[in-house]
């Protein structure tokens, strides 16, 4: 496989055309029943995330509680797809979420730089999985990728996927470090070829995070991969997504690029922490016809 990918020739991306398409999709007017449906779908696609050095078992348990009952006053709401934490807290999360349907996700493999020794990275993945993680978010080795060592970058991802065993693997491209949409497209193809179940925009740990054109660029790569390789890969956007409006703009991009099949937590995720509350606020507005007090929202 590395041989075939040696040149890594992928479909080029025109940045200006991409931006214009993304802007036009962002202007879709989502009203009434569609807004309601979009907000519920966004909620169901959230990977409720906490990746702070100060995270504690207590904070993670509280996060899991929020995931299980996003709005105690509105029990009909869907739950977020997963709770995403550091490996050291996977066991705590797994214990809180066991049997609930909300999955446990963990970053692993020297997150966020991915430049630790490969064996240590693989061990970290294995450990997280054995502690109960259903999903592992790993990073692309940008150092290898940007220096043209595509074979190495690919090989590490293949090894990571293998280390993850049955857990789903999301490959973070850290698009803000890749420099161009052509690179993002190439990295997307590389990650999908390595067996990624999802490709993901960002770690949230550098200034640049997910953008609509970036999501569109990756969605186009996913679409082409599905057409040529026959395998459907999911898309995860993460970093900087805080408002309900942003979330439905991403849903529009996914819907109109990849189609309705991707409008499910199985193939689309939003990594976020603050987003959930704005989605709940907007759902309440639709429910009551007015904005409710922010302090009603469970933290």
């Amino acid at each position, binding site marked *: 496989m590395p041989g075939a990918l040696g040149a890594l020739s992928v479909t080029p991306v*025109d*940045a*200006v055309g*991409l*931006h214009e398409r993304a802007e036009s999709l962002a202007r879709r007017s989502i009203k009434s029943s569609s807004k309601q449906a979009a907000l519920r779908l966004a909620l169901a696609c959230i990977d409720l995330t906490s990746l702070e050095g100060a995270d504690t078992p207590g904070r993670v348990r509280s996060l899991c509680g929020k995931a299980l009952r996003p709005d105690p006053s509105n029990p009909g709401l869907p739950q977020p797809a997963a709770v995403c934490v550091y490996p050291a807290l996977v066991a705590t999360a797994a214990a809180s979420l066991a049997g609930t349907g909300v999955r446990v996700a963990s970053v692993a493999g020297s997150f966020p730089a991915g430049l630790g020794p490969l064996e240590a990275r693989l061990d970290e993945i294995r450990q997280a999985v054995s502690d109960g993680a259903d999903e592992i978010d790993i990073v692309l080795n940008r150092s290898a990728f940007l220096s043209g060592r595509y074979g190495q970058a690919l090989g590490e991802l293949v090894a990571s996927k293998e280390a993850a065993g049955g857990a789903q693997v999301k490959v973070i491209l850290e698009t803000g470090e890749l*420099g*161009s*949409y052509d690179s993002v497209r190439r990295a997307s193809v590389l990650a999908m070829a390595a067996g990624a179940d999802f490709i993901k925009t960002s770690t949230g740990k550098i200034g640049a995070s997910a953008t609509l054109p970036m999501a569109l660029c990756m969605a186009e790569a996913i679409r082409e991969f599905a057409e040529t390789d026959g395998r459907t890969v999911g898309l995860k956007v993460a970093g900087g997504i805080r408002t309900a409006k942003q979330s439905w703009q991403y849903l529009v991009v996914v819907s109109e690029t990849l189609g309705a099949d991707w409008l499910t937590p199985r193939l689309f995720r939003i990594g976020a922490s603050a987003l959930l509350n704005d989605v709940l606020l907007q759902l309440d507005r639709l429910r009551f016809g007015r904005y409710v007090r922010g302090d009603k929202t469970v933290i």
Partner: protein
Amino acid sequence: MAQDELLGLLGRRREGDGVKANDRRLNVRKTYKMFVGGAFVRSESGRSYPVHSPDGELLARASAGSRKDVRDAVRSARGAQPGWAARSAYNRGQILYRVAEVMDSRRSEVAEEVARAVGGHAAVSEVDAAVDRWVWYAGWCDKFPQVLGGANPVAGDYFNFTVPEPVGVVGIAAPENSPLLGLVSRLAPALVSGNAAVVLSSECFPLPSVTLAEILATGDVPPGVVNVLTGRRPAMLAALAGHGEVDCLDLTGCEQTPQSGDGPEPLVEAESLAAKSVTRVVKATTAQRLWFEPSSESPYLIGEFCEYKTVWHPKGR
């Protein structure tokens, strides 16, 4: 030896050598052919017509071009045009400058011919002005796109520029009363950008245009780039105006086209024929007439024979 003495020995006089047989020598008359595809040809019709000086003296016979001659001239212009346009601007400039060189070297002869043709007294200064005009336009070849075109500051992440391009084949109805300078004033700006031309000479005074063709042939102007037809204008003009391969029609010289019988006014007919294939027509507005003045030269005349092409491209990483 003084020039007059030399001329005397050769049996020529300074003023006129037409039908007045010299008592010492029967001079050899020149045949004024048309210039098509780089060759001097007679009309395929086999016809010619007498050309007189303003005082009635028979100067020579000129070819009476036909519709088929127009067709041949357009075909040869169409064939030559891409190559002419593809030459570097520097090269076109040198070739047009070479025309000035050759004309200057034949200055007195050309002046004599103009004088005989139109009977004017300012023939030498007209030739000098024509030489100047070639020199002036020669220098525009590598400059006019900078003056007429440019980069356009459009909104968004785009680079956008406009370049003037030759329109292609230009049909020129030469000004009737200014057979040399008037013609050069239309022809030179048309050639600058890389057009090929089919010239309908002044009907009354066609001889200087044929001499101009000889100068072009002696210079380095590639065959077919300029084609010069002589003859009755209305029929040729109609053929030229109605020809789909003519991209632009310069009718500024048409004001004094002689009326022929009861047919439609040639200018009106030419314009309506041009309209059938949306051929651009350059007409003499008041302002454009002013450009004919010997002192007037303008890059905007080059623009009259150009198409403007605008190209957009995004700017992205």
